[in-house]
C-alpha cells in the first residue's frame, strides 16, 4: 500500500458510542494505525484545532467520518467544513445518518424540554424560577454566556451533502472492521448509498420462518417483552413482538433477536427505503390479522421512528 489514507473524524451531537465502536476494534486498531494518517479527530483524539482544519486545502482529506446529529450552529458549521475538506464524507452511525435516539426530541418543543429539566423534575429546586440564559450577569460583574440551540435535531444530510451512510447505534465493531479496509482500499459503492452488507436483519436471523421453509402467518396478538419470553427459535414478529428486522439493515448480524429482544431499527433502512418508520408501519400492519390490533401498539411514533425521526419525511412533530 502506497500512501497512508488521510482520515478525519468529527463527533457532533451524540453519545460517543460510535467512537467506542472504533476503540472496540481493539488490537485490529493497533494494526490499522500504521495505514492511517489521522489528520483530525475532534473533540476527542487529535490535537488539531478547528481552525487548523479550516486552514487545510479543500479536498485534501481522503475520508471524513462524521458521527452524531446536528443540534447546534457550530455543528452545522463543522459539517460544512468537513464537507469542504474531505473528498469522501460518511455519515457514520444512526445519529449522523438518521438523527438517532435523541431525534425523538423532535416530538417535543424546546420549551417543553426546558420546562421538564428546570421546573417539573422531582429533585429540581428552583425557588426563583431561574432558566439558564444565553447571557447572564452574575454578582453584577461576571458576564457569562451560553450558546443558543436549534429547535430541532437534524441528520447530517440536511446540512451537508453526504457520500455514504453507515447505520447502527453504533455500528458493530465487526462491521467497522469489514468497512475500514474497504475505505482504506478506496472501494466504495455508488455515491449516496449506504455502506451495508445489503441484507435485512431478517435475512440473518435464525428465527426467520422463510429460512426454515415455513410460511409467515398473520399476527393474532400484540405482545410486549414484559408479556413473557418468546418461544425459542420462532420468529418474534410472528409471535406478536413488534420486531422491525424486516426493514432494517442487518450489518449487526441480527444480534437483538438472538437474545430474545425485538429489533428496533438502529441499523437504518434496507436499501431503497426512504422513510424507515413509514415502511416499518407498512410491513408490520400488513401482517396484522385485524386492524383492532393497531390500538394495542403503544406510542407508535417512538417505536417506528426510534432512531430515524429527524431523517423521516416529516422530520418532527409539526405543531
Amino acid at each position, binding site marked *: 500500500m502506497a500512501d497512508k489514507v488521510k482520515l478525519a473524524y468529527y463527533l457532533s451531537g451524540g453519545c460517543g458510542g460510535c467512537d467506542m465502536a472504533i476503540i472496540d476494534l481493539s488490537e485490529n486498531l493497533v494494526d490499522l494505525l500504521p495505514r492511517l494518517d489521522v489528520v483530525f479527530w475532534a473533540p476527542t483524539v487529535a490535537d488539531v484545532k478547528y481552525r487548523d482544519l479550516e486552514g487545510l486545502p479543500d479536498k485534501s482529506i481522503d475520508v471524513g467520518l462524521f458521527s452524531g446529529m446536528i443540534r447546534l450552529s457550530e455543528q452545522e458549521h463543522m459539517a460544512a467544513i468537513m464537507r469542504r475538506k474531505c473528498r469522501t464524507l460518511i455519515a457514520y452511525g444512526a445519529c449522523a445518518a438518521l438523527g438517532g435516539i435523541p431525534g425523538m426530541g423532535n*416530538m417535543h418543543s424546546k420549551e417543553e424540554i426546558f420546562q421538564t429539566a428546570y421546573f417539573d423534575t422531582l429533585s429540581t429546586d428552583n425557588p426563583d424560577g431561574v432558566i439558564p440564559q444565553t447571557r447572564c450577569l452574575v454578582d453584577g460583574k461576571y458576564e457569562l454566556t451560553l450558546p443558543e440551540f436549534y429547535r430541532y435535531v437534524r441528520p447530517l444530510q440536511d446540512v451537508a451533502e453526504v457520500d455514504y451512510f453507515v447505520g447502527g447505534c453504533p455500528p458493530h465493531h465487526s462491521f467497522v472492521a469489514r468497512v475500514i479496509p474497504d475505505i482504506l482500499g478506496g472501494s466504495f459503492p455508488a455515491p449516496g448509498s449506504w455502506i451495508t452488507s445489503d441484507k435485512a436483519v431478517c435475512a440473518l436471523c435464525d428465527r426467520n420462518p422463510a429460512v426454515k421453509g415455513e410460511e409467515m402467518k398473520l399476527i393474532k396478538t400484540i405482545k410486549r417483552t414484559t408479556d413473557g419470553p418468546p418461544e425459542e427459535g420462532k420468529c418474534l414478529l410472528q409471535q406478536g413482538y413488534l420486531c422491525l428486522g424486516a426493514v432494517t439493515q442487518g450489518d449487526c448480524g441480527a444480534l437483538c433477536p438472538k437474545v430474545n429482544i425485538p429489533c428496533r431499527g438502529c441499523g437504518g433502512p434496507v436499501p431503497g427505503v*426512504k*422513510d424507515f*418508520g*413509514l*415502511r416499518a*408501519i*407498512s410491513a*408490520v*400492519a*400488513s401482517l*396484522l390479522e*385485524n*386492524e383492532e*390490533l*393497531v390500538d394495542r*401498539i403503544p*406510542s*407508535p*411514533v417512538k417505536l*417506528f421512528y426510534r432512531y430515524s425521526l429527524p431523517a423521516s*419525511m*416529516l422530520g*418532527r*412533530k*409539526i*405543531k
Partner: protein
Amino acid sequence: MSDWKPNIVVFACNWCTYQGADLAGILRCDYPSTISIIRVPCTGCVEPEFIVAALKNGADGVFVGGCHPGDCHYQEGNNKAAARFKLLKTVLTEMGFEPDRVRMEWISGSEGKRFAETMTEFNESIERIGPNPIGRYINGG
C-alpha cells in the same frame, strides 16, 4: 385565508372507487373541484409514503378509497390497506395532524352517488379543519 380552498388528494382503487368516480360523472353527480384523483391498482399498494408525500407537499386532505371487504380484486389488498391506514393515522395524529385530515372508505363501482356525496362531505370536513399545518411548518412555525 378567506379565498383558501382545500386541496384534496384521492387515491382510488382501479376496480371500485375509481369506477365509482366514473359512475358519478356519468350520473352527473356534483362533487367539489378541490378533489384530485390518483388511480391506483389497489389500495393495498398505497404505501404510507404516498399519503405522507401528499401531505408534505401541501395536500389539505388525503382520501383513500377501496373495495368493500371481501371484494378485493387481489383478495387481501384492502385488508392490508385498512390496518396500515389505521396505524398511519395514529402516527400522523401523534405527529400533530388532525385525525380527520386523512380518511379511508370503501366505495364500490356501483356507488357513484355515494362517491360524490362522500367527496362533498370530506371537502366540507377539510374546510372546517382548515389548511394543512405543513404550510406553517415550512414557514418556520
